[in-house]
């Protein structure tokens, strides 16, 4: 069974929205989102693999999203992930140059979670959106 959620985010990093498919949960805390996006979660509770989707370095929104999500520069975030993947401790996120590409990928990938700026939330179909709790 495929189920879809979307998270409009408040608190930890405003002005970005999270969306995902088949994550096995209908809401997520700020702390949980932070753990997921720093590679500390391997599997969702429903057993699906966590697949992180982020804007790529060529995306015009990369710096804005990275600042909101990580509080770091694009370079620092890319360095963080290079190192973590090299250690074998996490799978590499998938990077997208456009929001539409990311939305399309998340829609067809169980366990995938993506983040885009709130001004592009209209790209995400109904049924994906959920509010993040503190």
């Amino acid at each position, binding site marked *: 069974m495929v189920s879809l959620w979307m998270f409009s985010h408040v608190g930890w990093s405003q002005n970005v929205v999270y969306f995902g498919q088949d994550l096995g949960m209908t809401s997520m805390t700020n702390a949980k989102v932070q753990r997921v996006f720093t590679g500390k979660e391997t*599997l969702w509770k429903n057993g*699906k*693999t966590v697949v992180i989707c982020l804007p790529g370095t060529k995306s015009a929104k990369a710096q804005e999203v990275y600042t909101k999500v990580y509080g770091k520069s694009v*370079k620092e975030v890319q360095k963080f992930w290079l*190192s973590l993947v*090299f*250690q*074998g401790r996490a799978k*590499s996120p998938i990077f997208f140059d456009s929001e539409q590409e990311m939305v399309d990928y998340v829609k067809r990938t169980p366990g995938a979670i993506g983040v885009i700026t709130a001004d592009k939330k209209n790209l995400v179909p109904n049924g994906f959106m959920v509010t993040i709790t503190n």
Partner: protein
Amino acid sequence: MKKTILFCGVLLQVAHGWAQSERNIDLKMYGHMQYNMDKFDQDKNSYFSLGEQDFFVTAKLTDRISFLGETVVKYDAATSAKFAPSIERAQMKWDYFGNHSIIMGKIHTPVNTWNDEYHHGRLFFPTIDRPLFFSTMVPVHTSGVSFRGQYLGRLNFGYDLVIGNGISSTDAYDASTNKAVMAGMHIRPDENTRIGVSYYNDYMPINKPGVHSGHAGYNSGYLGPLNFELYSLSIKRFTDQYEFMSESGYGINTTDSLGRAENFASFNYLGVKVKEVSTIYALADFMHIADNDLHSPRGKQMKTAIGYKYEFSETCNVKFQVERTISSDTHLNNQGDMQVERYDFKFQLAYGF
């Protein structure tokens, strides 16, 4: 040389083709080049060297099974081409529950933070070289099975239990039925900090250095049984303002003939970030191998260094390092118990993409 180039070409072509057709496969390459100028006794040298060229591949085979491989092409005087490929990591991982996994293959033995995180990627090294005791005391690789847990609980607790071929084995064979074991645990109380301890034990019926140790080149001539033990303590804290790392090891090599040889090593690094891309650093690295040790070259070494790292991007950096090494190690100075002083200036260009 042609064979090595052909190997690299084929590897890149195949992996590039996979990467094009399937997003679950990722190929990266890491490497470094170096310039050294040293003064060692009456000897002076100045030379450029081509460092390790590291082909790193990861692949997701199923939702829960993944592969990680690290193959390095490096200088090898024993071959006619002077360069040879070497499989440094080849591991299959099964994420069986939550953040718990089982890994099988050739891994970097996670005895300390350095060996668990930096592997052969000079891009990630905070200094130009590994700590001194990687050349004598650290069992760098293990071929076997590892049980791993990570990021558990509020302190992000992690554990590693490794069972595998011992120090005297090759990548394909271990003459001993006895297996080496390693147990380690660590915590990451915040995003910048890792504190870990570990214990490694390998009983070798025949003392022989093998490819899994960083000290394959040394042979004391002793071929009797030897019990190899290593206790490790690692503390690492890297913030936006400063970087601190301490790697310590206490080794006990026990033989019937000379008894218990106690070895000690400690590597300490402190870096100050003057800008996001610039780090000034200093290190003090000490190692003492006991006189009655029959596995590693006995002696003392003390290296102190200052250095500077500049990061052009997350994929390219340079390091400059000036160092002084005082050694009574026959392995290094070849002059018995005499103490020898050595000075080095090193420049390293490291990259990964």
